[in-house]
């Protein structure tokens, strides 16, 4: 139902805009009506890559300019009509996206942004050198319409509107599919996305190819509208900046953001340019600059989100959940750990695992076995190497020496998303939920690795949510959840990928005592249902009630490996936790 409403909104927008453009007869305003749509489309192109993945591109002019020159040169040299060359421009833009993306996605953050900046500027000089300082589209007097040439400017507006609506529909479809979820997961936490079975490079390449297609196509159309192409007008900084600005001003990561941004900024800057351009030639750039700065400082997520958050305020997080009963004397708990029986089948066999960073031996010769249905607790003081062990198990790190056998197969050297598909699920110490998405959608991200269709993924996600006991909260927005529910949601996300073995990284951190009991009950139920669990925690407190077996790490090496009762009485463990001299007191 919500889907239909947003589709309706797009249609209503298109009809209203078309009706409005019919009333405009002044050719200058007709052009402006068209340009608003051109830049909205360009903003959507930028948004598709940068808005969803968070990788900021300062180089979208490269695709735009290639498209514009494709159309202009094709008509000049081959007499090709824009009706044919615009699709070609789009394809070229897409290819350019892949060519740029393949090397550039190796870079992150600053480096990515800087490298993207270099592409259009390099192309700008190349096109100047090639002698294309100014390429005009020849007037076709015989069949103007066959060459997309119309005396009525409103027709251009209609064509642009069709393109924009198409791009909006594509964007909307991407947003709701596993494609969009994958991109958003990458934006939140690329490592976690990888661990959830998402082929991050593959999706990013698809995103930049699609984004390049849109930019190339609209760049080609821009050439038709303006009839003349110059390097600075299509490869210049202002092109990339304009795409970025309309998207950021309106709101990133949504279909409407770039459209809203273009609807406000383009008329304002064009009008000022027309009215004052003669005396104040740079007014457009100043407007964009001010808009960017104002948005970054006042509403860093853009108008759309700021307004939406203001008008659709949600119930505060604290009120959503009654505080769990927590006993005052926190040290004296009484829950006893029931004995569980665990089979003999070894599903994870770690042999002699070692990893050094520089001179520091983070993990030294660690060996252990995990049997099916077992809950293994890995504990140890801060800096003992626990998280490094997890990173070695799920493929973030490659061990220097040693083997990891999952169901008898050595998995050393495989990528995290491949390991996830093989049944290695994991959660993270630091939670980064998609704040604005529902619990169900958050969990869905983890389900795609095992699901062939979107329906199956939804089913797996719903099942995982039920298993952790969050079914009542499935449609709530993650931003409103309490810590305990967020932790459970994280577990559900990992569960949705149908893992055989689930690695939990400090799932109990930051929980109050009653909450810890809740989460422990959930984890134990999962184990009873057949999921094998390895959990890291630095406090032993809660763990003794949960696990079947302990592995104690200290300074990267296995200190003790044994049953909880034995481990808590082991003098070495007492020393590692309480200090060497504690044993002496305890015996006195």
């Amino acid at each position, binding site marked *: 139902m919500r889907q239909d409403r947003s589709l309706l909104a797009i249609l209503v927008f298109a009809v209203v805009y078309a009706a409005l453009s019919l009333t405009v007869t002044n050719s200058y305003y007709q052009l402006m009506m068209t340009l608003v749509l051109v830049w909205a489309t360009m903003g959507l192109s930028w948004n598709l890559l940068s808005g969803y993945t*968070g990788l*900021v591109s*300062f180089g979208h002019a490269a695709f735009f300019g290639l498209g514009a020159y494709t159309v202009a040169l094709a008509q000049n040299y081959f007499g090709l009509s824009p009706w044919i060359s615009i699709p070609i421009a789009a394809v070229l833009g897409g290819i350019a996206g892949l060519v740029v993306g393949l*090397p550039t996605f*190796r*870079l992150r*953050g*600053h*480096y990515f*942004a*800087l*490298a993207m*900046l*270099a592409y259009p*500027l*390099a192309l700008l*000089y*190349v096109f*100047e*050198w090639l002698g294309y300082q100014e390429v005009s589209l020849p007037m076709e007097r015989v069949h103007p319409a066959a060459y997309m040439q119309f005396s009525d400017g409103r027709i251009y507006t209609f064509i642009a509107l069709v393109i924009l609506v198409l791009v909006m529909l594509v964007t909307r479809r991407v947003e709701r599919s596993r494609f969009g979820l994958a991109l958003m997961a990458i*934006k939140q936490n690329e490592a976690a996305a990888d661990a959830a079975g998402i082929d991050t490079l593959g999706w990013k390449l698809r995103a930049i190819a699609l984004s390049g297609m849109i930019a190339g196509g609209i760049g080609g159309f821009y050439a038709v509208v303006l009839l003349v192409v110059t390097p600075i007008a299509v490869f210049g*900084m*202002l092109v990339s*900046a304009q795409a*970025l600005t309309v998207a*950021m001003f309106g709101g990133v990561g949504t279909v409407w953001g770039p459209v809203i941004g273009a609807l406000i900024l383009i008329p304002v800057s064009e009008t000022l340019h027309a009215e004052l351009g003669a005396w*104040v*030639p*740079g*007014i*457009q*750039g*100043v407007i*964009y*600059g*001010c*808009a*960017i*700065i104002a948005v*970054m*400082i006042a509403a*860093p997520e853009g108008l759309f989100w700021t307004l939406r958050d203001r008008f659709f305020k949600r119930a505060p997080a604290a009120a959503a959940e009654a505080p769990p009963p927590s006993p005052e004397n926190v040290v004296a708990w009484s829950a006893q750990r029931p004995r569980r029986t665990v089979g003999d089948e070894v599903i994870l066999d770690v042999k002699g695992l070692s990893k050094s960073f520089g001179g520091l031996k983070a993990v030294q010769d660690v060996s252990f076995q995990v049997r099916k249905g077992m809950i293994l607790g890995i504990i140890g003081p801060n800096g003992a190497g626990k998280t490094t062990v997890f990173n070695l198990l799920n493929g973030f790190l490659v061990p220097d020496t040693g083997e990891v056998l999952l169901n008898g197969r050595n998995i050393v050297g495989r990528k995290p998303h491949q390991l996830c598909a093989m049944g290695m699920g994991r959660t993270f110490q630091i939670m980064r939920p998609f704040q604005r998405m529902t619990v169900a959608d958050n969990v869905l991200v983890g389900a795609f690795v095992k699901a062939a269709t979107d329906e199956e993924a939804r089913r797996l996600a719903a099942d995982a949510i039920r298993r952790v006991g969050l079914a009542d909260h499935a449609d709530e927005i993650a931003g409103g959840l309490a810590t305990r529910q967020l932790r459970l949601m994280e577990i559900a996300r990992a569960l949705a990928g149908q893992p055989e073995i689930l690695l939990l990284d400090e799932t109990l951190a930051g929980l109050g005592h009653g909450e810890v009991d809740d989460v422990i009950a959930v984890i134990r139920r999962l184990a009873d249902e057949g999921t094998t669990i390895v959990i890291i925690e630095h406090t032993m407190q809660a763990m003794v009630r949960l696990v079947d077996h302990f592995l104690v790490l200290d300074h990267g090496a296995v200190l003790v490996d044994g049953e909880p009762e034995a481990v808590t009485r082991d003098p070495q463990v007492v020393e590692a936790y309480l200090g060497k001299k504690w044993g002496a007191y305890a015996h006195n």
Partner: protein
Amino acid sequence: MTAPQIIENILQALVAGVLVGSLYGLMCVGLALIFGVMRVINFAHGDFMMLGMYAAYYIFTALGIHVLFGNGFGPYVAAVLAGPLLFVVGYGIHRALISQVTGTRTLGLDGEGHYAQLVLTLGIALILQNGALIAFGSMPVSIRTPLSISAWELGPFWGDFVSVFINKSRGIAALISGVVIAGIALVITHSRLGKALRASADNPVAATYMGIDVDRAHRVAFGLGVAITAVAGGLLATTYPFHPFVGLEYVIVMYAGVVLGGMGSIMGAFWGGMTIGLVQQMSTLVLPTQLQNTAIFVMFLLIVFLRPQGFFGRVVERT
């Protein structure tokens, strides 16, 4: 072309490379100082340099420097004076705008924080470029000095065949640049301010524990970085004409130099800029002039892909 001619061309390109490279090096030092201390990539850095060029121009023409120091040396005095002026501008812009999205208040943020900083400086770049267009017009201007049409001759070597000319104007600019770099290096390594800046760069939280006001250190670093690049701009303006969008032509040079030098390493950035100058001038031996900039961009991309930690200096990029 005879062998001596070829050698002469190569030597001449080498000298030209060193001369322009020393100015590029100075520009890069300004950017590297900002990046090294604040971990912010200043997108508007080229445009601050452009402001430095106009500042030098107006100081020279309007403030009567040409009367005081003559047309020969006046432009250099003006270029150096542009430094303090732009320090104030940079300090002010940091305080008013950039500090809103950087510094201690964003220490806890990772990805999102940097995103805001990059985009904010893009906004500043657009305002500076177009604001300059409004204020100064689009006609290229230059600061003329009679020294730019005379040269020192080195040689002749190899009998009488090879001699190298050093343009006096560029030679003096390179010398001043060397002096400024040496001064900066002294301040950074030995002064209390320099040490506090380095401490803030190494670990802003621990620097706060020492009682260093990290936000203020950032403001000073930003002002200094802008001022240094402005001086480089003023010196460059004595030989090259400039216009409001000139920053874009140099901004990639600066990024390339800084990345080449190892992001954040200050002396590394100088050698990085020097290398870029040499590559640019040597490329004219084999490439058409219009593709000089493309050569730099290609080199920049290669550096970023092959060796993002740079060739000079240490690896400082965190995470």
